[in-house]
Structures are given as C-alpha cells and as structure tokens.
C-alpha cells in the first residue's frame, strides 16, 4: 500500500531518517519501535507530508488518505475550539460533505470512538485524557483516511485508559478496514497491536519482521537490548 524508497531527511548535521526503504501492506498494522530520537516521528511526518524529504520517495498513497493521532491529547487539541468543531474541521476544509450533513457525521464519529454526542459542545479542558484521545482519533478519522499513523497514542495515559484506547483502535481498524503505522516504545503494546515490527535506531531500520520473529528470535543485539529493557 505504501512503498518508501531510500528516504532521507537531515536536520543540520543529524540524519533523522537515513536512507530508509520500507513497505507497509494494506490492512496490516506495522509497529515502529526505537528509543526517542531514533527518527520515528520524523519518518511519520515525512509520510504525512508535514515535512519535505531531502531524498527518496513515498509511493502508493495520497497525502489526503493519511492521518495521524498524536501522542499528547493535552496539547493536540486547540483549547479554544469545541470538540464538535475540531472533529468537523477536516471535513469542512476538504469540502467532503455538504454542510448540513456535517453535524450528523460528527455525531457518528463520536459514537465510533464511544463518546456521548453531548461532547460536541464541550471544550478540551472539560475532558479527561482518555476522552481527549478519543476525540483525537475521531478527528483523524473524520476525513475518511485509509492509513493512520499512531504516534505513541497511549504513552501519556494511565494504564487502564491505555487498554481501553488500544481496544478501541483495534476495533476501529477492523470496522473501517484501515492500515496502521503504530509508533511506540513499549513492546507489550506493540505485541498487542501489530502484525509486523520494525526496529529503528539512529535514522535506520535495523530489523523488520513479523512480531514472532522480532520478539522471539531477534537478530540484532540492539533489538535484544530493547526487548530486555521493556519486557
């Protein structure tokens, strides 16, 4: 579905993404692990088109079919915009639906992330962290993307909320037939969410394979180190 070829992005003298080639298959959930600063987020932003690569290509998907769920639901929602408007914004901008249908769509999206439709009239600060992340998911889904990047979507939530959100994400993926790129540093979560795992370090993909291969039979010492430190 997405084919990344020899993608490179440098910031100053740092190679954040260093000659990465990678394929993401339709319908799969690919986990991306690595320590902070390994280039995971840069890779995500390149795929989204938020930043421009120095070299290489991303093929197979239009920019409008990609969306992202951010890590921190505290700061990823504009404090002055009501939940309903935040969810409606992608639809309004892309003029995907007639104006009079949008309110109904917002209600449906809130239902999809299992929030009461009353939330549409609330401001972000009136919501809990878990509720906000649900809103973040609803906003990402509102323009009907085919591919979703989840950038550590649960790492700032408490454990019981993490489980709820992960279940929800799994459920939604099935319902809407989505493809995920799931960024995390917790291998337990990756193991639960993903089919394949890519290990990233210093801008390069060290190792990629099915989760059984990576978790039970890691080839690289760095992968072993990651496994031993997080499990």
């Amino acid at each position, binding site marked *: 579905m997405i084919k990344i070829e020899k993608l490179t992005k440098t910031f100053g003298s740092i190679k954040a993404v260093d000659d990465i080639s990678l394929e993401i298959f339709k319908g799969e959930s690919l986990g991306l692990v690595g320590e902070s600063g390994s280039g995971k987020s840069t890779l995500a932003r390149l795929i989204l088109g938020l930043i421009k690569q120095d070299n290489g290509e991303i093929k197979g998907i239009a920019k409008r079919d990609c969306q992202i769920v951010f890590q921190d639901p505290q700061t990823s929602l504009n*404090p002055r915009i009501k939940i309903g408007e935040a969810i409606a914004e992608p639809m309004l901008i892309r003029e995907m639906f007639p104006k009079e249908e949008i309110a109904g769509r917002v209600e449906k999206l809130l239902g999809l992330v299992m929030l009461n439709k009353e939330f549409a009239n609330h401001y972000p600060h009136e919501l809990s962290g878990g509720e906000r992340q649900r809103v973040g998911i609803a906003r990402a889904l509102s*323009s009907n993307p085919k591919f979703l990047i989840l950038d550590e979507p649960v790492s700032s939530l408490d454990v019981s909320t993490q489980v709820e959100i992960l279940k929800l994400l799994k459920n939604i993926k099935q319902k809407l037939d989505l493809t995920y790129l799931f960024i995390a540093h917790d291998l337990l979560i990756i193991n639960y969410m993903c089919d394949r795992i890519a290990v990233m370090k210093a801008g390069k993909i060290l190792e990629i394979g099915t989760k059984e291969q990576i978790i039970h039979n890691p080839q690289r010492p760095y992968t072993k180190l990651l496994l031993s430190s997080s499990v």
Partner: protein
Amino acid sequence: MKRGKFGLLVLIILLGFAVLAPVIAPYDPDEIVESQTLAPSFNHLFGTDDLGRDIFSRAVFGARISLTVGFAAVAIAIIVGVFFGSIAGFYGGFIDSLLMRFVDIMLAFPSIFLILTVQAMLSPNIYNVMVVIGLTSWMGVARLVRGEFLRIRELQYVEAAKSIGCSDFRIIVRHILPNAQAPIIVAATLGMAGAILTESSLSFLGLGVQPPMASWGNMLMDAQAYMRDAPWMATIPGALILITVLSLYFVGEELREKLDVRS
C-alpha cells in the same frame, strides 16, 4: 478595593461621561457663557476658562476626544502589529528577520519627533492624530505577537491543523491567534494609556486636536498663561489625564496577572 477594580470603575464612569456628554454637560463646551476665569462654583463646577467657557462641559466633551483617539489609535496599532507579528512569527526565517529589522528601524525613531514632523506636514486634525499615533506605536505589539506565535506554532494542535490540511491563513487566524489574545489584550490596555498621553502632548503643543474643539491636551495649553490667576484651568484637565492613564495601567496590570501573561 483592588486597584484593577478601582481602575475599571473609573474608566466606566469616564466612558459614561464621554458617551452621555451632551446630556451631562450643562453648557455648550464651545460657547462663551460667563465671565472669564471664574473660580469653581455651584454654577460652574470646574470654573470657567480664559474665554469664559464652562470648564466642566469642556472636560466632559474632552473625555470623548481623549478616549476616542486613544481607542482608535490602539486599534490601528493592534491591527498593524498583529499583522506583522503573526507573519514574522509564523513563517520565521528570512521573512521574520526582515520584518523584525523593520520593527527595529521604526523603534529607533524617536516617535514623538516623527509624530511632530508628520503632524506639522499634514493638517493637524483629529483623524490624523489617531492614524499617526497608531502607526508609530505598533512595534511593541508586533514583537509580542511574534513571540507568542513562535511559542504556539510548536504546539501539537498546530501540527494537527497542518496534518488535516488547514491553509496557513486558517492556522494563523483560527488556531494560533485566539490562543495569543491574552497578551494582546494587556498590550492594548497599556497602549491606550500611552496613546492618550501622546494625544495630550500633541494637543498641548498645538499639533493635535484643534481649537475650538476641546481636548484635555489643548485645555492644558490654554491654561499655561493663567497658571497663577486660574490654576483650576490646568489642574482639572491635568488631573483627568492622570486619572485616566493611571486607571488604564491599573486595569492592564490586573489583566496581566489574571490572564497569566509573562511580560
């Protein structure tokens, strides 16, 4: 009573006087109604001036002028400042450097001389006063707004707005500006105090609001020759300027604390 509340109360009273000036003023402010330089009395609360006009009536109409000029000048300064500041802060890089150097150049001019020159060249009427004050006092706002934009543009909700495909204009106006409004409100309040002072200075020098129209500044100018014989002619407009400016500062400081704005 807290200073901020006190200031607000004073401003509301002044605003009331300004709006209701024709109702409140007992006499026509430009009409000679009595002998010259009468001391304050029951008939003439603040006395009369060198031509025999009622100072209370002139002060009330002067409040109109001072507040209007102050408000309009600040509005112009805010519009220009927000425009330059948001573009500089949002785009950064070369555009930012260019605009900020322009701000530095504008700041390097001693603005009172710039205003005097412009006023001397143009006909010094009340509209020119507003525009000139506005166009020489936007630089602080621009710097402030730029700083806020630099901070806010790094927040995740701005990145989220980009990722859903918002245009730059939409991000600036809908996502960043509303979150930068607190310091702008504070700057506007304090800026209005400055604008009222500038208007008074200009009118005092004869380059602002032109007689016979009353402004606190030109009332002060008229009072110069009568400091000894009719001190109320100077004290009344002087005190009004002081009270207004002080009240605006009190309110501005209170807002700064309430809205948690770092200066």
